[in-house]
């Protein structure tokens, strides 16, 4: 992982604006997130988060691809979802003491805006305007994932 603190917030905001998640946030929220987080690059096969560990950061994937994997006994790791540019990972970092439900692995060289969970929660607690802007979009991302998971549960293509 290569973390880079970027003073050029405008560049970070531009990256956010190229994601469906970031583009719908208020400009003030985009700027706040740019200042709260930092841009990180991940190499192929780099594990970003281990299943069961504390979720310490939330990320918005700017480029590349991540895989969310769950370990299934006797089957090994199963990829249940890929995170594509514009989507988020580690969203449970907005909750206190949350554990990761899956392992996050980079399957391509990837870049993300990563925001520390402690700083994010503190900011959301003190800045209600930020919370009012960010929470609905996080909920939107979670809802998308929930809808997709329901369809996967149906195993539509089963024989």
């Amino acid at each position, binding site marked *: 992982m290569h973390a880079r603190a970027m003073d050029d917030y405008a560049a970070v905001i531009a990256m956010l604006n190229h994601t469906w998640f970031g583009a719908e946030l208020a400009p003030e929220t985009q700027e706040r997130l740019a200042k709260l987080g930092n841009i990180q690059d991940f190499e192929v096969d780099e594990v970003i988060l281990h299943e069961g560990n504390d979720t310490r950061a939330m990320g918005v994937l700017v480029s590349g*691809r991540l*895989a969310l994997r769950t370990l299934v006994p006797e089957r090994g790791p199963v*990829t249940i*979802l*890929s995170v594509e540019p514009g989507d988020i990972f580690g969203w449970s970092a907005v909750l206190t003491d949350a554990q990761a439900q899956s392992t996050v692995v980079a399957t391509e060289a990837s870049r993300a805006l990563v925001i520390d969970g402690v700083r994010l929660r503190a900011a959301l607690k003190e800045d209600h305007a930020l919370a009012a802007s960010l929470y609905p979009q996080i909920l939107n991302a979670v809802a998308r994932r929930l809808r997709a998971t329901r369809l996967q549960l149906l195993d*539509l293509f089963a024989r």
Partner: protein
Amino acid sequence: MITNPVPGPTAVARQWFLARSDLDALIQALRKAGRTVIGPTVRDGAIVNDEIQSAADLPAGIRDEQAAGRYRLAERSDDRVFGYTVGPTPWKRFTFPPNLPIATAHLSGGFGFEQPHITAPQLAFLGVRACEIAALGMQDRVFLGSPFTDEDFRARRKAALIVAVQCTTCSSTCFCSSMGTGPEVRNGYDILLTEIDEGFVVQAGSPAGAAIVAHLPTRRPTHAETGAAVDSVEAVRTQIGEPLPIAGIDRRLQHQLDNPRWGIVAERCVECGNCTMACPTCFCTSVTERSDMEGRTATTERQWDSCFDVNFAKVAGGDFRARPRDRYRQWLMHKFSTWMDQFGSFGCVGCGRCITWCPVRIDVREELQVIAPVIQPVERPVAVEPVAASPGDFSIARLASVRQETEDTTTLSLTDMDPAFLAGRPGQFVMVALPAFPAVPISISRFHSNGIDLTIRAVGATSTALVNLHPGAKVGVRGPLGTFWPIEDAFGRHAVVVAGGVGLSPLHGLVEALVANRDRFESVSLYYGSRTPEDQLFRDDLATWSAGKAIDVAVTVDRAGPEWKGRVGVVTTLFDMMSCDCSRITAFVVGPERMMQASVQSLISKGVPPERIHVSMERHMECGIGLCGHCQTGRYFVCKDGPVFSLSELGDLYVREGI
């Protein structure tokens, strides 16, 4: 023998009088003319239509008492022989037999399909009522008036002489006047009898009828006798009462798919199928295969079936009309709504048999009144004329090559086939048959210069047998059938193809056409989801299309191991890649029904117009020409009006449970 089965205005015809004591002369004249006489006779506590030898077999002095769920015989105070209404035997039993061989396959060297030699018995139907003549006319439209002609029916119908009888009594279940089919017999008969106290006023309606009447001991009727005949029929109309508000009910019903009454009536319905068996117009059938023990001859037989049967709309993956309410709605809506789309008339003649013989006293008149308020009309889609001749008819094609696509899916390349197949278009399908296996519908996945590809997932007996064939084998094919992808609808627009699982098969030919005509579209995108990477079809083609850059290809899988580096997630997640003006998208969608539903919802939410979203529907298809009834979806027959529909055509019918 009937010359004009379509009821028309009453012609001024010559009349005779035949004494009741001389009625046997009519029966014997018919027999002497070489006909077996089928007429009313008492058996098992009912007046049924069966072979009779003489007038002594007729139900003299017997009347019937009918009400919802009730049928009883009682004595009349006179000796009239037609003093009842209609019994449980529809005349279709003799023109459209309950069980009929329609094809035989022989294995000798190669194999071939033969259709049986048609021999129709010379019958005389005695005692046919106005509603029943109308029912025969409806069956004429079903079997003779569509692109498909049932030659067995034609022969039986032509060989039957109709001796009609005017109704001079009615039951509480009769509603012929509501359906415009009675009570007067106006046409469609060879001989017409109106029973009065002393005998019958007789009319001839055809030369054959006149020839029979000429041999009877008749005289000219008196004015009193002809007047009595007219009055007795008019009295029946009065007795039946005010007609039901039937006009427009076909359109009104189409807006009542969710009416809670369907569930209420279904709680009473025991799905015995009596209504469909007693109905004089129901014509749904199923086909079964029967092989000899040597495996050299297989016979295809057609049997009456009922849309109330739990398996009637079943496919390998489930049942499209799983609930009793779905099956009741299918039956009633076919009779009073979608029959109109199919044949231009109602499918009910108002004989009341379905009411009388319903063991739980469901009265269709009452259900119609409760279910159908006023609604807006719906436009009909334009259907493509099928090339097929008849359900038992297949031409032979040779299997040129076999390619395994996935563990359970195989592509068969057929060649040496009728050139008509090569004129098909992407989205159409063929019925494929092997001896001793029921024919199955298979989408055409590719058109070659000398044949077609069929990509088949082995899920049943026929499909498993097909994928196990070797090059050089012969298969029976019929088609191309159904509607096709309207590629023109995407000219100048963004063409988006959404496929799930084996749904890529009916879209494969479309993608090839989009690639071949790439300049005509603003952009072309293929979004394809499958269960696992190993379940992806046409992997070579996917790679070629991706590499060619002519179209954007994005694939995803529902689950994968760590070796898979591509997308994981349902196909709708791929829509995030759409960066164009979605109102300018024309989409083509195929996959499991629930996947299509999610895709369509997502496309609409992004602003894709419903009329620009085209889907291909899977249903239980047997005949391929919109007759057998298995694939009926509301007012559409998926095999004939589909399988490709736009969302706006389907309207409320799309992904609706139980249709």
